[in-house]
């Protein structure tokens, strides 16, 4: 039984007041709040086990290493990875994609090769490929989106061909709430001898994810969007692909033998974890996936699906509003705009009521251009949000429009 009130007790920040209003946190696509269990894991790590990992032979070093590796195992299992060999800790999704664009892209891309992305990519799965393309002479191509915000899969079939070396796609959109058919894209990629990278920043926190089932070669996600601390993210890569890649960052731990003029590399996954890692953050992420696993990702998805539908329905009743993305098969977020109040002004007015939403381009400027807007407002929900909070948003939105209309002489 999914008891959202019970769940809310685990999140101390949800008791926060903004002025005299209770916080309504609807900016979860940017970052999630953290349950007590994660905060306790961080505190326990620092109070009782903190040491540098993989080196010392003293008790604390052993404990810290064990905690870090246990987090790796938990995270691998949460994502459906067969084992921990391909599970690399990173700072987040951005670093994970950069790791691939650098370690794989710089080595294997060349003139005449193509990387196929989509028009809806977050900058984190676009800019690293622009850099790789610039360095190697490879070309970027983009699967367009249809009017309803879903991918033009017919066009994808034309675009993905013998020149394609990699297909990269967001699993779920941080603007449109679409869930992309990445399994199908992986099939198309593999049929053409290309690799498939899935940017799971907006899926891993919200949907059951199984990297093997998706058929991808790389899967990236950010711990801080899924109840974990900032600074703890993940790249999962198929070990045989990772094995062929160049290192990303050089330094301690990623090496086996170092000479003055050359070095040899450590085994996977350590080869891609140079320097002292964000150990506490990885441990926190381990606690986060424990928490998510305890709730069951199918239950989380179901809760958010209902919230998202409720929000879409309530918001679509508002006169003049534009909602972005498809009507069904959505994740739990809604991007919208109203003609009379700019998203920035709107989020400022909602903040006064304790409601936190996001406004802007959501780090997807090409997509915003495609939608023909400079900015949208976005309310994004998570496992602790309630229908009452959605209703509070809708009501505050009405008040904000009234206020703006009254003061500017334009009726909403």
């Amino acid at each position, binding site marked *: 039984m999914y008891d959202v009130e019970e769940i809310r007790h685990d999140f101390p920040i949800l008791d926060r007041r903004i002025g005299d209003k209770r916080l309504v946190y609807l900016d979860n696509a940017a970052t999630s709040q953290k349950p007590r269990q994660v905060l306790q894991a961080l505190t326990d790590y620092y109070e009782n086990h903190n040491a540098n990992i993989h080196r010392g032979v003293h008790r604390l070093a052993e404990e810290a290493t064990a905690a870090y590796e246990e987090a790796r195992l938990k995270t691998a299992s949460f994502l459906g990875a067969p084992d921990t060999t391909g599970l690399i800790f990173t700072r987040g999704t951005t670093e994970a994609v950069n790791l691939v664009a650098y370690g794989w892209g710089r080595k294997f891309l060349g003139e005449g090769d193509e990387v196929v992305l989509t028009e809806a990519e977050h900058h984190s799965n676009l800019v690293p490929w622009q850099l790789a393309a610039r360095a190697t002479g490879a070309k970027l191509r983009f699967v367009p989106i249809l009017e309803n915000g879903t991918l033009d899969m017919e066009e994808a079939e034309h675009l993905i061909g013998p020149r394609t070396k990699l297909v990269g796609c967001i699993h779920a959109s941080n603007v449109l709430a679409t869930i992309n058919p990445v399994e199908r894209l992986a099939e198309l990629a593999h049929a053409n001898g290309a690799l498939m990278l899935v940017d799971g920043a907006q899926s891993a926190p919200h949907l059951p994810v199984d990297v093997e089932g998706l058929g991808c070669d790389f899967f990236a996600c950010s711990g801080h969007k899924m109840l974990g601390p900032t600074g703890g993210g993940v790249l999962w890569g198929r070990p045989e692909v990772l094995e062929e890649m160049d290192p990303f960052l050089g330094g301690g731990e990623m090496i086996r033998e170092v000479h003055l003029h050359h070095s040899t590399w450590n085994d996977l996954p350590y080869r891609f974890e140079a320097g002292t890692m964000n150990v506490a953050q990885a441990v926190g992420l381990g606690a986060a996936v424990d928490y998510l696993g305890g709730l069951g990702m199918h239950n989380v998805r179901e809760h958010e699906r209902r919230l998202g539908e409720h929000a879409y329905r309530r918001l679509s009743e508002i006169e003049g509003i534009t909602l972005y993305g498809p009507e069904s098969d959505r994740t739990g977020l809604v991007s919208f705009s109203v003609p009379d109040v700019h998203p920035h*002004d709107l989020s400022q007015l909602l903040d006064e009521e304790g409601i936190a939403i996001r406004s802007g381009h959501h780090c997807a400027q090409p997509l915003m251009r495609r939608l023909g807007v400079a900015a949208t407002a976005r309310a994004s929900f998570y496992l602790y949000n309630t229908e009452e909070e959605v209703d509070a948003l809708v009501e505050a939105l009405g008040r904000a429009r009234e206020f703006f209309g009254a003061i*500017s002489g334009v009726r909403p």
Partner: protein
Amino acid sequence: MRELYTQVIMDHYRRPRNRGEIEGADIEEHLLNPLCGDEVTVYAVFDGDRVADVRFDGRGCSISQASASMMTERLMGKSREEAEKEIQGFKAMMVGEEEFPEMDDLAALKGVIQYPSRIKCATLAWTAFQQGLEGEK
């Protein structure tokens, strides 16, 4: 907070002064606020050293649009040096280093200082004009 949205700001937002394009202007500077995607283009025509006409175009929040509108009023007729001084003065006001002029529309933007994320909205058009002046040199 709602005092942020003063009548003066809303008036400039809804009825912007000097909004539009100027073809073949001496200054035509486009600027994007990377934080939010808002954009503004500032146009200016000089008669000798004086700003003979200044206009702006773009899309953005009430603060950015109202501030752009106020800027055009403020800079009309000014020499290049005076304009540069006005812009520097305004930016200093927005970081609390200089007082806002009393009995002037600009004073309505004082409330923005409390919201650091919005200061860039207020300075967007001014920075565009400043870059345009630099580009002329």
